[in-house]
């Protein structure tokens, strides 16, 4: 039995690096400090859904083959394609992504990472407006106001609040955890009394609370760290918040602009914006202006709905405005553990963070044209290589349809939806569990990933597989050139 300390969790963009694993006979048997997703990943590393052998589609069926054969077939498909897409990259190491970009350049394809369907719009806005940022460590120690807008860390980044924001114990700011526990106790007590009263006196089903009533009595002017949540649903995170603002779907843009007006001390000549009474908004605006160090985290609730990138423009501008009055930063909540790394490596090598087209021999970038969903919707690509991602499951059906129509190569550890419909499947080692590498946390801090156990026999890391495919593609191309 061996205990490995300070392991980085390769699941979400929080990249918690304090995980402790117990390894027995080459298997991880115990996970300490991790959240539910982290446990599922580490304990499930030898799950029944791992792919152990390369597969190739013959007569409509996926059949086992050798690694050499699979690599060769993959290289033939890519070398023979006119306009292949190479997609994924957010759940693998920076090193693998780097080889992937070389491969894209070699075959003249479009390379894109999953940011395109999560924070792509945020990247576009950052290019336009700029961003005021810092590390998560600074937030942990100094931020006295935390806002989560259009994101639900309790569900998607379970330890974010505890490690970096409201419930973390910083040097200058204390954890608000105790307050929260007290509040929950009070709420449970109040609910009990309410239901007893209702049962005994009213004998009718309790009425649904008015839509905008905050979960708790607003204690926004309290001492210490404050947590504000703005969302279309009262998420689990919203329940923890000191103040919750429920915005109507697709109306975030209006709300952001309203805040911008309020923090400039302008009066709003309406009663409510996006379904929220102005009185609530003033309360939040006051808290924003009066904090010493504010942090606004935003999620896909802003990038995927309504005005999309314009929402982010407004959010970035709001934070820029706030910096005239106090210190404020803004940060996107990145989902996959290395999506930030993918953006970074793409930018180093091509100049652009995602949606890069090499078909003319040099990198071109024009999201909406060279982004993978658009290429697929227009039906232009004629082959695809997917690495560590599951687009057939994650893309809108119409985009996935085109992906499936053409030769499809899948490199990844699990029998995902994409693997089930692929033509060549190459199993890979889990980065951060069975292979080492580098990943970037959501605040752009690079963190090493450890190799804790050996991968299944014969299974290689993504980087190695891609290097072999690249070599094979180069061989095919030079043979062709010689023959010509």
């Amino acid at each position, binding site marked *: 039995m061996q205990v490995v300390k300070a392991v980085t969790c390769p*699941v979400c963009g929080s990249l918690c690096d304090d995980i402790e694993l117990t390894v027995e006979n080459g298997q991880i048997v115990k996970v300490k400090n991790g959240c*539910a*997703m982290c446990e*599922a*990943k580490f304990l*499930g590393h030898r*799950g029944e*859904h*791992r792919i152990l052998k390369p597969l190739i589609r013959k007569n409509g069926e996926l059949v086992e083959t050798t690694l050499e054969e699979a690599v060769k077939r993959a290289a033939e498909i890519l070398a023979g394609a006119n306009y292949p897409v190479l997609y994924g990259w957010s759940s693998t190491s920076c090193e693998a992504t780097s080889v992937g970009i070389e491969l894209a350049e070699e075959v003249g394809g479009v390379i894109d990472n999953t940011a*395109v*369907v999560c924070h*792509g*719009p945020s990247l*576009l806005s950052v290019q336009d407006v700029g961003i005021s940022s810092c590390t998560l460590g600074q937030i942990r120690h100094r931020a006295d106001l935390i806002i989560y807008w259009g994101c*639900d860390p309790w*569900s*998607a980044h*379970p330890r974010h609040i505890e490690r970096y924001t409201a419930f973390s114990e910083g040097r200058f700011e204390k954890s608000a955890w105790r307050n929260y526990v007290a509040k929950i106790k009070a709420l449970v007590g109040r609910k009990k009394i309410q239901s007893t009263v209702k049962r005994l006196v009213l004998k009718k089903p309790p009425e*649904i*609370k008015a*839509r905008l009533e905050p979960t708790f009595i607003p204690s926004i002017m309290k001492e210490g760290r404050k947590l504000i949540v703005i969302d*279309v*649903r*009262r*998420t*689990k995170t919203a329940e923890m918040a000191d103040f919750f603002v429920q915005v109507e*779907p*697709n109306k975030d843009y209006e709300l952001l602009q309203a805040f911008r007006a309020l923090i400039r001390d302008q009066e709003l000549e309406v009663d409510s914006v996006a379904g929220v009474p102005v009185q609530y908004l003033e309360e939040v605006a006051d808290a924003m202006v009066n904090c010493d160090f504010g942090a606004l985290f935003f999620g*896909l609730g802003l*990038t*995927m*709905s309504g005005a*999309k*990138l314009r929402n982010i423009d407004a959010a970035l501008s709001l934070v820029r405005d706030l910096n005239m009055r106090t210190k404020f930063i803004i940060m996107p909540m990145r989902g996959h553990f290395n999506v930030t790394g993918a953006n970074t490596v793409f930018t180093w090598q091509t100049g652009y963070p*995602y*949606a890069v087209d090499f078909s003319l021999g040099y990198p071109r970038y024009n*999201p*909406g044209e060279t*982004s*993978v*969903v*658009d290429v697929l*919707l227009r039906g232009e690509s004629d082959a695809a290589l997917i690495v560590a991602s599951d687009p*057939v*499951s*994650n*893309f*809108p*059906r*119409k*985009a*996935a*349809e085109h992906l*499936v129509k053409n030769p499809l190569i899948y490199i990844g550890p*699990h*029998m*995902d*939806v994409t693997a*089930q*419909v692929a033509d060549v499947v190459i199993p890979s080692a889990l980065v951060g569990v069975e292979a080492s590498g580098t990943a970037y946390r959501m605040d752009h801090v690079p963190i090493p990933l450890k190799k804790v156990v050996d991968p299944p026999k014969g299974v290689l890391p993504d980087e190695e597989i891609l290097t072999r495919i690249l070599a094979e593609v180069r061989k095919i191309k030079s043979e062709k050139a010689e023959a010509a």
Partner: protein
Amino acid sequence: MGEKPKLKVTLLTGRTIEQGVGKELGKATKEYAESVSICYMDPEDMKKLGVKDGTNIQVSTAFGSVVVKAKKSLRAPHPSVIYIPYGPWANAIVNPETHGIGMPSFKGVPATVEPAPDKPVLGLEELLKQQFRKG
């Protein structure tokens, strides 16, 4: 029987912790399918539609239609807003248009919901067969 009740709603998709755990366990697992072939609804909306927790419902948008299980939302009230966790079921009906920026509309899609107690919720394999005729 009178006319079937139908409800106009806004469809949201997103993560849930069950979906997060399911995807780490493996997409072919029962846990995963069960965590994403459901639709969280406001209890008041469920009453209007006459569906119970676990009744099959059909959700349709301009882009497709899919049968999922209705679930009482713990995050209510959110009248006229339904929530399906990310996955092949949700993606069968979201708006693929990217409006020139590469990002499809996964959230805030207009939809209608109707009870479909006689229609089955497809398993992952059947859903894929129906959609892609491969695999």
